[in-house]
């Protein structure tokens, strides 16, 4: 589904990603973790071409992201993405947020888009908030709407960029629950997150990054039981302490 091959990226002389390779098969859930500044957010943004990269290749569903001939908007419309800061459109109601890209990008009718939006809102438990605006919802609710907005496009896979990092602690679980459910339904997911509990519960593989390199890429059991690199051991020791 997603194939990342020898991807490198630099801003000027600063190397952000060095020779990263991995892949995500259909139905797989991959958690990407690592210390801040390790390049994990950049890597996931390369997957749908939000960040350009200088060398290597990323293939999503058979299409090369870095190829200048690729219709990026079309590719992106098939790849859902959830951001750290939700990025709902504040000038639109919740239903409008859910419908806009369905109508303008996929060309669905308004009724169809509204219908689909409301169904997904119900699924994330927020049907009652349909007429409100993003600013009237809590962070956790906004993030669930953002997930519903991405799902409304019927994506072939979902990218999560630290979806719970900007949330108050008591709201983390409501978002993770939605993500867990999604994973159990067989959605292909690539999640940048520090939520190791979530990784233990639903991930198939864990990727650990440090200084722009993929240091570990292991089945979750192996990663948690026995991380090979010293850097990952330190990271886990710190993060699992509390």
């Amino acid at each position: 589904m997603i194939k990342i091959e020898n991807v490198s990226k630099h801003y000027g002389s600063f190397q952000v990603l060095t020779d990263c390779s991995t892949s995500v098969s259909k139905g797989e859930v991959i958690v990407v973790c690592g210390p801040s500044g390790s390049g994990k957010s950049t890597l996931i943004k390369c997957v749908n071409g939000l960040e350009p990269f200088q060398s290597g290749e990323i293939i999503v569903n058979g299409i090369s992201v870095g190829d200048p001939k690729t219709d990026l908007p079309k590719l992106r419309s098939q790849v859902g993405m959830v951001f750290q800061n939700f990025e709902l459109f504040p000038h639109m109601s919740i239903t409008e947020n859910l419908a806009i890209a369905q109508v303008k990008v996929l060309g669905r009718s308004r009724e169809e888009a509204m219908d689909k939006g409301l169904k997904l809102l119900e699924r994330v438990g927020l049907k009652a908030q349909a007429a409100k605006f993003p600013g009237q919802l809590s962070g956790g609710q906004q993030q669930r709407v953002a997930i519903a907005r991405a799902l409304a496009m019927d994506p072939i896979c979902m990218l999560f960029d630290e979806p719970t990092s900007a949330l108050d602690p008591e709201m983390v679980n409501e978002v993770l629950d939605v993500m867990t459910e999604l994973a159990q339904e067989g959605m292909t997911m690539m999640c940048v997150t520090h939520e190791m509990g979530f990784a233990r519960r639903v991930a198939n593989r864990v990727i650990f990054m440090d200084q722009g390199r993929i240091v570990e890429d292991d089945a979750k059991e192996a990663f948690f039981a026995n991380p090979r690199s010293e850097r990952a051991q330190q990271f886990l020791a710190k993060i699992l302490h509390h």
Partner: protein
Amino acid sequence: MTYEFDWSSIPGALPFLWEGMKVSLEITAQAIVVGIVWGTLLAMMRLSSIKPLSWFAAGYVNLFRAVPLVMVLLWFFLIVPKFIETLFNFPPGADLRLSSAMMGFALFESAYYSEIIRAGIQSVPKGQISASYALGMTYAQAMRLVVLPQAFRNMVPLLLTQAIILFQDTSLVYVSALADFFGAAYKVGDRDGRLVEMLLFAGAVYFVICFSVSRLVKRFQNKQPA
């Protein structure tokens, strides 16, 4: 000897002054429309990653902001029409001077609008563009549906304030013999030998209009959520 005020010529002059006011409002409205449309395009060029576009917009804005408005109006009143006539072989009867002056005014104000709009676009968080792209929108869709509506909402007070300044600036078109409100007041005052009263009256009218609009802007600002 003290000056004897005589306001009696004002009531009779009101219809003529109203004609002038209509011209002033027309120039203002035209400059606002052109300013916002052309200013938006300039702002987008300025922020574009295509270097020549960005240079052009920067050059345009810096040029117009560094020259006095009166001078621009005179260029467009005296030089540009001649130039166009020669260039396109216009019949000598066609008088382009007034429309040219109005266009010059609008082009000048566009430079100021474009700076306001640029700041407005930059006030929208980058993540909003990323989210639009991630949903499959093109650059044009992201700008039109997501960024510009938010930018304009943030800019409304500044745009209105600029509109007030613009309305005052219209008085400068008197150099091009356009009978705007100020020009009309001057003419009537001159004719009746009551220039002082007429100019004081015109000043009062400008003050009342601009002051009330700026109060409205303030009220609007206070109502807006932070």
